[in-house]
């Protein structure tokens, strides 16, 4: 009972304790499948326990309908998984044998990238050692460079031709221009990169020097070595205009797990792989 005035006696004012709740308890979240329940028995047991705690708070018919529904759909999903695992085994073997299916192509490319990464990882220490050796022997380095520049593939001409060295003549430009198909055909592989990400993302794009400028990512997007991770698929190559090079735009979803994602870049004019792309997404 509340008193509105301070008592003359000086005793402390009485007041009712605040109620433990000010409204009805309606917690429907425990009626349904807990997100982390992985099988119907666990779920049913969890629901029974939780439902006992809310006896009378939930319409029994409603609860019955929900329980029935989960039983039916879970069994259906299990049957689908069993059928899918049988089908996938057959389809996987068939694709491996035929080498023509899109899954096989994606598998091949993924395998290629994985091997490249593995080789790179094992070769890096040896490259570092070789680089150190060259740095310690400048005469050897100059000789290697001279031989590289003199090689016809690198733009040099024989002494019967117009020139030697890495200079490109106008004839060379004309010859290279004949290969173009509306894209850019350059000795450099300049591609603008735009990254949209709320976390740090390190991008490495390794392209062959010569490509048409019409680029695409191989099917399957960028993949982590852990195939359980979702692919990083929002990668677009936008052709440049007025002689500008292409732009690659990568969007990293907020929920993308931190990892290294790699993929193969395809020249859509030739249909040939022309490089690799890797994106290392940092943890949030």
């Amino acid at each position: 009972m509340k008193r509105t005035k301070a008592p003359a006696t000086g005793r402390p004012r009485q007041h009712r304790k605040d109620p433990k709740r000010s409204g009805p308890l309606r917690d429907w979240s425990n009626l349904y499948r807990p997100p982390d329940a992985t099988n119907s028995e666990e779920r049913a047991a969890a629901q029974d326990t939780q439902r006992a705690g809310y006896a009378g708070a939930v319409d029994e018919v409603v609860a019955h309908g929900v329980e029935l529904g989960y039983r039916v759909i879970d069994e259906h999903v299990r049957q689908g998984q069993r059928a899918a695992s049988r089908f996938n085994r057959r389809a996987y073997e068939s694709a491996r044998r035929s080498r023509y299916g899109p899954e096989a192509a994606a598998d091949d490319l993924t395998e290629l990238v994985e091997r490249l990464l593995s080789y790179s990882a094992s070769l890096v220490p040896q490259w570092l050692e070789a680089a150190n050796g060259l740095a310690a022997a400048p005469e050897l380095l100059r000789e290697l460079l001279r031989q590289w520049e003199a090689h016809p593939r690198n733009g040099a001409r024989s002494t019967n031709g117009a020139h030697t060295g890495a200079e490109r003549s106008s004839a060379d430009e004309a010859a290279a221009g004949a290969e173009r198909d509306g894209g850019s055909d350059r000795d450099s592989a300049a591609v603008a990169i735009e990254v949209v990400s709320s976390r740090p993302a390190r991008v490495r794009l390794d392209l062959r020097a010569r490509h048409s400028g019409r680029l695409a990512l191989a099917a399957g997007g960028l993949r982590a070595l852990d195939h359980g991770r979702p692919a990083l698929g929002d990668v677009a190559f936008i052709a440049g205009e007025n002689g500008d090079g292409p732009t690659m735009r990568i969007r990293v979803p907020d929920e993308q797990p931190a990892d290294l994602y790699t993929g193969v870049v395809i020249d859509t004019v030739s249909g040939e792989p022309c490089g690799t792309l890797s994106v290392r997404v940092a943890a949030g």
Partner: protein
Amino acid sequence: MTSNGGPGLVSAMLREYGAITQARLREYLPAREPRRYLYDLLGDYPRRAGKMMRPALCIATARAFGARLEEALGSAVSIELLHNALLIHDDIQDGSEERRGAPTLHVLHGVPLAINAGDTLTLLSLRPLMENREVIGAQLAIRIIEETERMALESAEGQAMEIGWRQENVTDLGETDYLEMVLKKTCWLATIHPSRVGALIGSRGALDPELFMRFGFFLGAAFQIQDDLLNLVGDPQRYGKERDGDIREGKRTIMLIRLFHEATAQERARLGTVFGGPRERRTDADVRWVRELMDRYGCIEYARRIAQGLAGAALHEYSLLYRGLPSSRDKRFIEEMATWVIERT
């Protein structure tokens, strides 16, 4: 309020996505001979203004996951073409006389021509799926064709179950049997497949479509039970089919299964007689008697509460699937579908 949520959002978006789908769908209906016997029939059901829930759900799911409308539209059109094809056949199999407020196609043109029209709509539904390769890429287009194949098979199995039960007067069905049948016959085409395909398009094939099974099932099952309820209590003019038509057809609904469970032995015997013969032998008095029994045993209210539970489960599954997505009109539309399916009239 319809753009930001509230009671009108679902209706508004069904109209919006429905109109876009209808406009594109018309491009797939040939305008050539034989018109009178085939091509004039194809546009009949699509013109009758259905709810367009299936294509709208496909488009909204795709857009909620980041796709453009154009990337989902072909698949949405395919779904609607196939849905109309199956409606034509369904009406023949059920002996229905009315669809969306007008005579059914086989009543208008005869069973043989109606069957052929349904077959043709089924074949036409493949074209947008093939054209998908130009819009979303060959790999994803093939995947959606595989999804469509699975959905079509599940739908056929569900239809076979329902027809078989009626044909053989199966009366010892349980509610689990009903939900299994509805899962296949209704949910796969109405809600599971549009959600799966929309998610595949929106995620460019990255998402596992199995994630959408539970949400699609609960949404579709609630939708079907409400459809069955409307047949008994809805306004025939708005609902578009004859009142108590399902009783006359002998359709196995939650209400009928509940009635068999609650009825006395004597009543069950008579129910067996009523539903044991062909539809034509079922009299108006039989239908009235069954309906009165359903009311007496509270079967309609029972079914309504089952549907409410399933709609609630759909909302729960929605919260698990979509919580990571940014807020959008499409995401809100999908969320509100769970209550719309049981509140619609």
